[in-house]
């Protein structure tokens, strides 16, 4: 109860400061719009449906980019986690790859895939695939070997062994990787939408600033944060329903 009160208090102080600093002219109100005005702007854009298009475009890019990350990263992580020779072979490029910033590669993606959707999906993919691969690998390596033996003693092998034992055993770790990947995806999404885009929340932020609609700019930033939070919540829900056995254990 006290913890909850404290949480409210912290939020109230932050929002209060956001509201009062520009109102008291301590911060230039042209640069920092008071919280209530931003909220009003956001609400109007939601009510009028203006923001829908941008949310949908951003969400679509996230889904494609993160979806590809999962499709590529999970099997790759399962393989590196399971096969030592394969792990050894791809370790160097994987370690090097994750060090290369997705933003730094954006010009390269534009060169290859043009300025359209493809390069935006690619940059999101690049940013989000590493945590998926690494956490899947770690998840597989952390499986208790006894469980594998146990499955093998019942004649499980090959794809069945992967599907029925390795995948569920590594699932908690895989989900952690996907949630981390999603956080990175949202970060680079904004950068990607600031170049050669005409829709999306990142575009809306930059565009609003360019045409001096500062409240709309802040509204778009808040919308991005809310979307990120909602997406994380959704992933958590999926994770909990997929690994319900962990709740049973009282985790």
């Amino acid at each position, binding site marked *: 109860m006290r913890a909850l009160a404290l949480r409210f208090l912290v939020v109230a102080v932050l929002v209060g400061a956001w509201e009062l600093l520009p109102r008291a002219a301590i911060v230039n109100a042209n640069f920092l719009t008071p919280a209530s005005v931003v909220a009003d702007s956001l609400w109007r854009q939601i009510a009028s449906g203006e923001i829908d298009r941008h949310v949908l475009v951003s969400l679509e890019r996230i889904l494609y980019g993160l979806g590809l990350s999962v499709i590529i990263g999970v099997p790759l992580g399962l393989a590196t*986690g*399971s*096969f*030592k020779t394969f792990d050894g072979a791809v370790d160097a490029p994987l370690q090097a790859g994750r060090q290369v910033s997705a933003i730094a590669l954006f010009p390269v993606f534009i060169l290859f895939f043009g300025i359209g959707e493809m390069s935006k999906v690619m940059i999101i993919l690049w940013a989000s695939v590493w945590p998926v691969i690494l956490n899947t690998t770690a998840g*597989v*390596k952390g*499986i208790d*070997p*006894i*469980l*594998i*033996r*146990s*499955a*093998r*003693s*019942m*004649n*499980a*092998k*090959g794809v*069945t*062994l992967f599907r*029925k*034992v390795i995948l*569920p*055993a590594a*699932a908690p770790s895989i989900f952690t990787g996907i949630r981390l990947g999603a956080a990175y995806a949202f970060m680079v999404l904004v950068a990607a939408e600031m170049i050669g885009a005409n829709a999306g929340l990142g575009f809306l932020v930059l565009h609003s600033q360019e045409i001096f609609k500062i409240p709309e700019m802040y509204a778009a930033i808040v919308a991005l944060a809310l979307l990120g939070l909602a997406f994380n919540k959704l992933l958590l829900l999926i994770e909990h329903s997929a*690994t319900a*056995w962990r709740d*049973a*254990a*009282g985790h």
Partner: protein
Amino acid sequence: MYFSGNGAVEQSLRIDKLTKRYAVKDAAGPIVALDAISLTVGKGEFIAILGPSGCGKSTLLHIIAGLVSADGSVVAHGKTVAGPGFDRGLVFQDYALFPWRTVLENVAFGLEIKKVPANAREPIAREHIAAVGLAGFEHRYPSQLSGGMKQRAAIARALAYDPEVLLMDEPFAALDAQCREILQGELLRIWEKTGKTVVFVTHSIEEAVFLAQRVVVMTARPGRIKQVVDIDLPAGRAAGDVRSSPQFAALRHLIWELLAEEVDKTAEGFLARPAPEARTRRSLFGLLSAAVSREGG
């Protein structure tokens, strides 16, 4: 070599000159875990394996289960063992239940692999869960069960896909005395009812004498068969108070002396050899590559 007098009985397992060496990095030579083990187990027979810690009992069971390769041969029901199979079921010492599956789903695992149709799996699984006294706990996860219940679930899982041979690795070691006795009784009941062959590894002389028809006493590492002791106690042990009979005491004493020599050996060499815990946990890599290389065969 010592064989007890059931040569005429149909053979379930024929183990012939089984030798297992483990290559260990920091040791001078390979560790010889098993040295020329030969043993024949009759169909429907209940044998117990006793031996000092680290003498290779688990290794032996895992080789019979087809999880570990070795020199020599294991023939199960006339077929040379080249990998795991539905004819053999292994119950691990530490249960090895899948934490993400309920009791029902755990017990149905082997049936899924065996490709038993989905609608037939549940009744079979439920029947075996009931047989080990776990009815009502079908939808619990392993983390919600006590040690004894987990062990029951593990036994039900190995029984469900109906292997002819049940290989049990110290299944009751972690249980309290009372729970242990109850499960021993239930195991005997199941064994008498199903007529399965049981190879039962234990550390407990009592348990071995109480359960088995023959007790195989192994030497300290390298594991060899020291002696096979016939247990000629009256049948229907589960019912009467066999444990306090003079025959029981005599057998227990005989085996105790056999074992004591071996345990002394282990104690003498204790500082010179690695502790039993020092065995390397086989990595998943190793297990998977083994699984994959087995695929071919």
